[in-house]
């Protein structure tokens, strides 16, 4: 209300001042005309002459007004009053020039918005602590393997219990694994769920309790104890209708009955976001799979006052002891630990930090651009500054005034940026690779808002300070005396050139980075995966051991095989199906590895035994997924359960072990059985296009049956169209079986490049924005220069310069600026792109073709940006140009 009254009063006052000025000036002109008439001039001629003598009426009027307005603001005193004046003045100045303001706000909005969006991801994923009590003491414990050079190995049960007993650094430890699980609760459809089997200590380590019932305890966790489980909040709501009576109910998972004892809060998602049930691991030092089987991941809570270094020292010593005691299994195995948060986000960190750096460069370019715009304007505003200075505004006051204006602009830019960020975050979450951890944490909240505000204010000071200093040191008198003509000051234009070179250099760095990532991505895409991914449907089925016996040592796989045979036959009869095959791992699934012996070769020392990937596959597997047979034969009807044991190896395996002989006819043994090698097939990039293919082999599924497998269907049309039919066949054979993970082989394989694609798209986007901003910067400087030099250009043309000469001259200036920027930018790239090296594939961080391409692209953009003003310059009419002075 008070504000409104004040505003009203100010408006009235402004109008009064304006009226005063107008009537005084009008009085002067009238009096002059009357006096002229008195000398015998005609009335009309007298009026014209009076107006001519008066001079530029509009400018004088504005100048008077300016003097009075500035004065009107000098009534308050004290910093706050001054700040209020500065603010009002800033808003008025901005409103007076909406085109300029819109350009600045849009530019800053883009820069701040992109930064806010990326920061929200970095904050949610990397910075925010895990939502657990004492989360700084929770660590992830892993093994490494010196012999294989791997760093992230899981634990075996006996190793886990040995560390549990011997360590002096952990308050407690928990192991977990994530078994396959199908929920067939008393009612409803079979549902594929994500389960975690964990030590009971998991909950106390993470410091999270149930919202309903209890979590399982040491008694429940003993081998042989009654089966119990804890539900996630999500499945409690979706499957059990949030019924509190769920406690004590029995649910069936993989054919075993579990009693529900508790429900966890919605925020509890360990170990992964989709986890739906937790059940006790039920292993002990006496009852756990042997030391060679690395089934478990481990977290622990450090004792108070123990740091990571001490923990790592203790683990290293224990691992060394175990190596000695159990050389057969543990030779080369070390142990180490890191913060849980680091373990969860470690792989994504370089990419996110790279993106944060890149988007910071974009903001820097936006700042430079706006600074350049302000510079251009500060030359135009010299008169205003001079008047304010003449009226007694001190240098500091002028700087404050200019900074207020920049900060108001940047805060408006920040507001626009928030809109950009809201959209951006949504896009990032949608675009983000599925493997991006903690994505649910990402959003715009108080911290992100604070970041955006700080970024905006900082930006305002950053781009405002130079033009403010420049404006404030301006000569206060000459602009007033020169009757309003403001000549270009070469100093200001020089600074602007410098700014443009800077932003072109920054843009060149970004474009180089984007270029390298695009190259990498392109190379990744061009890698031959070794199979034909097009038109293949992938669907997964798991037969529960309770109804389909399949335990190790069992020889009775009748039910499993019967189901598989019937399924293949039924799916093979569906329309549009070209071929169908089962496999334990589809071609884009790394699967697991196993040790082996080549028959007839001398035994290798323990610890030097090699492993190879194993994949039991159905008969038509190679044909269905398009893997080339290079030697011998694939699997046939003859390779049945009680037929001769056979195996097909991949080319890497053949090269490594049979470089000087024909592998076909040789034998190799694993899992206690010797098999004849009957064929060799092409390598498949089953670990993704960026990874070396490892040695591996295939065995007939009929000879190594598995209850969990993929169904692969090559179709004549869109593979996903046939998915419901495949599902129907499964249910027809067994109504309690869910089909899960339905997708195409293409989708599966492209999952490997989701992260590189994400990096490339974002950096490409930033580079594009950077280029546009740089182009605007070049355009601005060249175009301003042409305006200032219209007279000079007129002289050149009248002295015989052709339009082409002028065009070349002006475009040359733009390109010269760009060339300087590119040179500096590429030099900077040499230093900065090294940070990219972990994200690159197939190109080094110093890649000449990319550098050349960047130079060409940036020069081309610079050419385009200077062409328009150059055209204008070449069309200057020399007569008009000369008269304009």
């Amino acid at each position, binding site marked *: 209300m008070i504000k409104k009254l004040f505003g009203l009063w100010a408006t009235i006052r402004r109008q009064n001042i304006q009226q005063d000025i107008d009537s005084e000036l009008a009085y002067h002109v009238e009096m002059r005309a009357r006096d002229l008439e008195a000398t015998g001039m005609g009335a009309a001629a007298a009026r014209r002459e009076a107006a001519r003598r008066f001079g530029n009426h509009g400018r004088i009027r504005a100048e008077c007004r300016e003097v*009075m307005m500035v004065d009107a603001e000098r009534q308050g005193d004290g910093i706050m009053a001054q700040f209020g004046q500065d603010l009002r003045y800033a808003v008025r100045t901005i409103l007076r020039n909406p085109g300029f303001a819109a350009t600045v706000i849009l530019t800053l909005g883009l820069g701040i918005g992109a930064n806010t969006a990326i920061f929200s991801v970095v904050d949610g994923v990397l910075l925010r602590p895990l939502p657990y009590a004492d989360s700084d003491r929770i660590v992830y414990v892993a093994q490494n393997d010196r012999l294989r050079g791997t760093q992230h190995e899981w634990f075996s049960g006996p190793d886990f219990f040995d560390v549990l007993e011997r360590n002096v650094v952990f308050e407690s430890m928990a192991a977990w694994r994530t078994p396959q699980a199908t929920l067939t609760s008393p009612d409803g459809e079979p549902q594929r769920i994500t389960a975690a089997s964990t030590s009971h200590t998991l909950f106390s380590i993470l410091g999270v309790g149930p919202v309903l019932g209890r979590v399982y305890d040491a008694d429940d966790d003993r081998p042989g104890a009654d089966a119990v489980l804890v539900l996630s909040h999500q499945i409690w709501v979706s499957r059990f209708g949030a019924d509190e009576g769920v406690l004590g109910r029995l649910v069936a998972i993989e054919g075993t009955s579990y009693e529900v004892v508790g429900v966890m809060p919605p925020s509890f998602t360990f170990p992964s976001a989709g986890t739906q049930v937790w059940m006790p691991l039920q292993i002990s030092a006496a009852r756990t799979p042997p030391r060679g089987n690395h089934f478990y991941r481990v977290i622990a809570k450090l004792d108070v006052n123990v740091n990571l270094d001490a923990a790592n020292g203790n683990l290293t010593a224990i691992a060394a002891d175990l190596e000695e005691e159990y050389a057969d299994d543990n030779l080369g195995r070390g142990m180490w630990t890191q913060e849980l948060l680091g373990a969860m986000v470690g792989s994504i960190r370089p990419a996110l930090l790279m993106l944060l750096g890149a988007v910071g460069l974009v903001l820097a370019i936006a700042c430079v651009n706006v600074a350049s715009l302000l510079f251009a304007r500060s030359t135009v505003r010299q008169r205003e500054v001079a008047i304010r200075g003449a009226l007694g505004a001190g240098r500091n006051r002028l700087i404050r005034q200019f900074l207020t204006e920049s900060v108001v602009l940047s805060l408006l830019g920040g507001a626009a940026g928030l809109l950009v960020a809201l959209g951006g975050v949504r896009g990032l979450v949608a675009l983000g690779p599925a493997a991006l951890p903690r994505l649910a944490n990402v959003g715009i909240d108080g911290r992100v808002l604070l970041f955006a505000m700080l970024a905006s204010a900082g930006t305002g000071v950053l781009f405002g300070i130079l033009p403010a200093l420049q404006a404030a040191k301006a000569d206060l008198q000459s602009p007033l005396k020169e009757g309003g003509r403001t000549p270009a000051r070469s100093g200001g234009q020089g600074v602007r050139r410098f700014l443009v070179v800077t932003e072109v250099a920054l843009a060149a760095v970004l474009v180089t980075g984007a270029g390298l990532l695009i190259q990498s991505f392109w190379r990744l895409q061009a890698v031959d995966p070794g199979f034909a991914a097009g038109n293949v449907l992938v669907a997964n089925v798991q037969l529960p051991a309770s109804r389909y016996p399949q335990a190790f040592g069992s020889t009775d796989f009748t039910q499993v095989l019967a189901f598989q045979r019937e399924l293949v036959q039924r799916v093979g009869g569906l329309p549009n199906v070209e071929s169908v095959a089962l496999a334990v791992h589809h071609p884009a699934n790394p699967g697991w590895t196993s040790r082996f012996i080549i028959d007839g070769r001398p035994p290798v020392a323990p610890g030097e035994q090699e492993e190879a990937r194993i994949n039991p596959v159905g008969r038509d597997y190679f044909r269905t997924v398009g893997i080339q047979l290079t030697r011998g034969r694939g699997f046939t009807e003859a390779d049945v359960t009680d037929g001769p044991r056979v195996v097909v190896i991949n080319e890497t395996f053949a090269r490594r072990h049979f470089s000087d002989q024909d592998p076909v006819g040789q034998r190799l043994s694993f899992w206690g059985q010797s098999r004849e090698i009957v064929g060799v097939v092409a390598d498949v990039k089953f670990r993704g296009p960026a990874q070396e293919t490892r040695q591996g082999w295939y065995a007939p599924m009929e000879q190594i049956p598995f209850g969990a497998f993929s169904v692969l269907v090559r179709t004549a049309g869109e593979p996903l169209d046939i998915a419901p039919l495949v599902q129907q066949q499964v249910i027809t054979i067994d109504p309690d079986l869910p089909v899960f993970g339905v997708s195409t082989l293409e989708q599966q394989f492209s999952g490997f490049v989701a992260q590189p694609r994400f990096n490339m798209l974002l950096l490409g986007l930033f580079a594009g924005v950077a280029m546009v901003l740089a182009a605007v910067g070049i355009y601005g400087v060249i175009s301003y220069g042409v305006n200032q030099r219209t007279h000079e250009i007129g002289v050149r043309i009248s002295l015989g310069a052709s339009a082409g000469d002028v065009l070349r001259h002006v475009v040359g200036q733009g390109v010269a600026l760009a060339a300087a920027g590119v040179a500096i930018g590429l030099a900077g790239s040499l230093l900065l792109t090294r940070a990219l090296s972990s994200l690159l594939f197939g190109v080094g961080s110093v890649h000449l073709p990319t550098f050349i391409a960047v130079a060409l692209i940036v020069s081309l953009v610079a050419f385009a940006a200077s062409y328009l003003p150059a055209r204008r310059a070449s069309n200057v009419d020399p007569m008009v140009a000369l008269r304009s002075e």
Partner: protein
Amino acid sequence: MSPGNPERLHGTLELLVLKLLEPGSMNGYAIGVRIQELTDGAVIVEEGSLYPALYRMQRRGWLKAEWGKSENNRRAKYYRLSRVGKRQLDKETAEWGSFAAAVGKILGSG
């Protein structure tokens, strides 16, 4: 304000206005006409450019302005010297004297 200051010419207009108003109040038009007569148009080129100067001087507190009736019964704005303005006039007159003397010395000896 020392001799040789680039503000001198600008200051000249202001000094003239102060001097003209010493005897009594005048309106803007009359001030302009008088200055042009006295200086042969050397100080004021555009007549209108007098007004920003008048406003500045008013805002510095040298001049007081009020609306009144002109000789032909029109509403016009009249300016007169304030006490601050009078002091300023004395100060500038003294400075001008020493400046003119300095320049005269140089030119006279050359």
